[in-house]
């Protein structure tokens, strides 16, 4: 039932990318970049905010058990139920159990990365429970039957014409390719679902330890409907979402909306502390929170890799990534794509499965420049490449043997100036075989992988002779 990948073939995928994907992605990400830049420029204290966000997250990462315990205690005190899920399977069973007890036939969902991570929708469907995504982007990809291609804008790879075609087919109607009308259609369809559903499922952007509060940051209002209309609300949240207190939250709210969508504040920021306590209050009768580990505790032991948990899922790194913009999200083979996916997937799924992802970057550093919580993404990419190439205490090496041999030979050649200099004298000898003017073309493997894209300058290491001659004639 699970669609967690067993091997992610980034290269294989990158060879067959439909041209429509980079086009749609580039258009959308450029809008995000412009919006973010404008909002960031308004805040002279932006750099201090980033530092504060990073510091708080690091502190929380180091004291996660303490804050989680505090959170649990406060949620219980407020009448909520707390469940600990060590694995994805545990989390699915917990949610299914709750649904079964309440005879749930339909569940409405607001956008959630954690339920994506545990493939909750398939588990619900298999148990005969209809699960409806209510975030517009998530609704679109649910109809399309694919995963998300961007952590913030899951349907970013689709053009409005494609969305209209999907709606027409799925809802048996003639949907116009106008975004506003399409949103209206979704709104009308989903309204009925909100009224009929017995259970609301959400994720969570932050968990505030000091008060046991679940924070949801959304823009469409569907999150509020999911968490207030049905009488039962279940939130599935990764343990890394914990923050100490409300004061910390003010830092993250400023960083998140500005980075993610170029807003000062998102349209809806909801604070949920426990269930409804009296008839006069809003909200569901029963509130459950499933705290998901699913390998996180293990990653927390890695002082370099664990910085991935500073992430507030703003998508900025994805928007500026030149690799992502040219391949789109599906190439990363997991629900989190782009630079954050490249450092997250190999840690969550293991480097045997995701060994290609740490290499899916030129280490250009554009991501680290914009990350609102200062995650050193290139450093973590290099760290994970080390895990792939030579292994570490978390994993055996997973790089194929021929590449290991190539690296050993390269190292030996570059560490000896005799071998190196001998090589530089040999290389120009192959020029005549492939030469067209000053360029080499159609070279054999492995240089074919360069020359099939663009020609290579002719080899010609003459500096050393020139320098020697110059010294002796001077």
């Amino acid at each position, binding site marked *: 039932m699970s669609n967690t990948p067993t091997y992610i073939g980034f290269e294989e995928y990158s060879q067959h990318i439909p041209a429509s994907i980079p086009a749609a992605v580039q258009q959308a990400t450029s809008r995000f970049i412009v919006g973010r830049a404008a909002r960031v420029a308004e805040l002279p204290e932006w750099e201090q905010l980033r530092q504060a966000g990073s510091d708080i997250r690091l502190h929380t990462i180091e004291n996660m058990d303490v804050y989680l315990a505090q959170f649990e205690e406060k949620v219980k005190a407020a009448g909520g139920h707390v469940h600990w899920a060590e694995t994805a399977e545990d989390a699915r069973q917990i949610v299914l159990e709750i649904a079964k007890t309440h005879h749930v036939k339909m569940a409405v969902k607001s956008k959630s990365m954690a339920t994506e991570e545990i493939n909750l929708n398939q588990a619900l469907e298999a148990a005969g429970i209809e699960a409806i995504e209510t975030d517009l982007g998530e609704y679109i990809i649910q109809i399309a039957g694919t995963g998300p291609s961007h952590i913030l804008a899951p349907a970013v790879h689709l053009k409005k014409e494609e969305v209209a075609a999907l709606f027409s087919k799925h809802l048996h109607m003639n949907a116009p390719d106008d975004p506003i009308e399409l949103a209206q259609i979704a709104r009308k369809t989903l309204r009925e679902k909100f009224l009929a559903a017995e259970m609301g499922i959400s994720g969570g952007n932050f968990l505030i330890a000091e008060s046991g509060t679940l924070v949801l940051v959304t823009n469409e209002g569907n999150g509020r409907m999911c968490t207030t209309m049905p009488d039962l609300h279940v939130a599935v949240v990764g343990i890394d979402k914990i923050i100490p207190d409300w004061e910390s939250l003010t830092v993250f709210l400023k960083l998140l909306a500005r980075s993610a969508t170029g807003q000062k504040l998102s349209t809806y920021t909801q604070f949920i502390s426990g269930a409804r306590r009296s008839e006069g209050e809003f909200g569901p009768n029963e509130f459950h929170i499933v705290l998901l580990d699913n390998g996180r505790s293990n990653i927390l032991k890695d002082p370099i890799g664990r910085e991935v948990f500073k992430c507030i899922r703003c998508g900025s790194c994805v928007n500026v990534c030149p690799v992502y913009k040219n391949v789109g999200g599906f190439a990363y083979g997991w629900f989190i794509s782009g630079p954050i996916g490249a450092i997250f997937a190999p840690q969550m799924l293991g480097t045997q499965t995701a060994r290609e992802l740490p290499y899916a970057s030129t280490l250009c550093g554009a991501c680290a420049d914009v990350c609102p919580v200062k995650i050193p993404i290139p450093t973590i990419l290099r760290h994970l490449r080390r895990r792939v190439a030579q292994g570490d205490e978390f994993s055996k090496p997973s790089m194929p043997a021929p590449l290991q041999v190539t690296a050993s030979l390269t190292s030996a050649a*570059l560490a000896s100036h005799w071998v190196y200099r001998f090589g530089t004298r040999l290389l120009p000898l192959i020029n005549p075989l492939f030469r067209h003017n000053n360029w080499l073309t159609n070279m054999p493997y492995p240089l074919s992988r360069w020359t099939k894209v663009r020609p290579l300058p002719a080899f010609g290491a003459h500096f050393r002779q020139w320098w020697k001659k110059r010294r002796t004639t001077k």
Partner: protein
Amino acid sequence: MPKAQLFLTCLGDQFYTGTLQNMTRLLEQLGVELVFPAAQTCCGQPLFNNGFEDKTRAVALNFMRAFNQSDAPIIGPSGSCVSMVKHHYPALFQVGTPEHALALDISSRIFEFTEYLVHVLQVTDVGASYPHKVTYHASCHYLREMGLKTEAKALIHAVKGLNFVPLNEEDTCCGFGGAFTVTYPEVSRSMMENKVRNVIASGADTVITCEPGCLMNIAGGLQKAGSSIRAMHIIDLLASH
């Protein structure tokens, strides 16, 4: 008279002899006395960036020994290679070992070419003239790891007769990324083609970069696109009269 050691970089050594000769002449004209440590090979970045830290050490040791024959500053025509030595060498060796001490010393006295000109020699006008329409590609490691945001442009703007035109997405990666070009050739291709499209759209007849890697990639891309635009290392621009 300031002294300095020439660091060729392996790509410079293999493909850009003319640029290295120009670097030598320019520095000498500015009164720098140069030495060339012949035992140098490569900084080891191709191994390091691909995860082979253990296999990088031997290459780094060769580099450090070659450049430790003199205590003069080291100058290289690549922000990426210089950054490798400056920012990553110290982390390769255990704190407290003589190799670590040496790495710190070498790291403290290595400079990228334009950095050395602008910050050490404090020169921006080297007397070059180049009556052409010129644009500039900001290389990733030069810009972000070395933090060199204004140096290249200051030098370019001081060239006589030059007409500077901006490049759309100037600081977006060109798709080189070292082994990335052969690991994911198709992705590298789209990124390079994007860069080449922007260069052509700029209306310039010359595009300048401070990185041999980007130069190979962009020049090759322009050649493949049948464009007559010249891709040029900043050193060659500064040596133009």
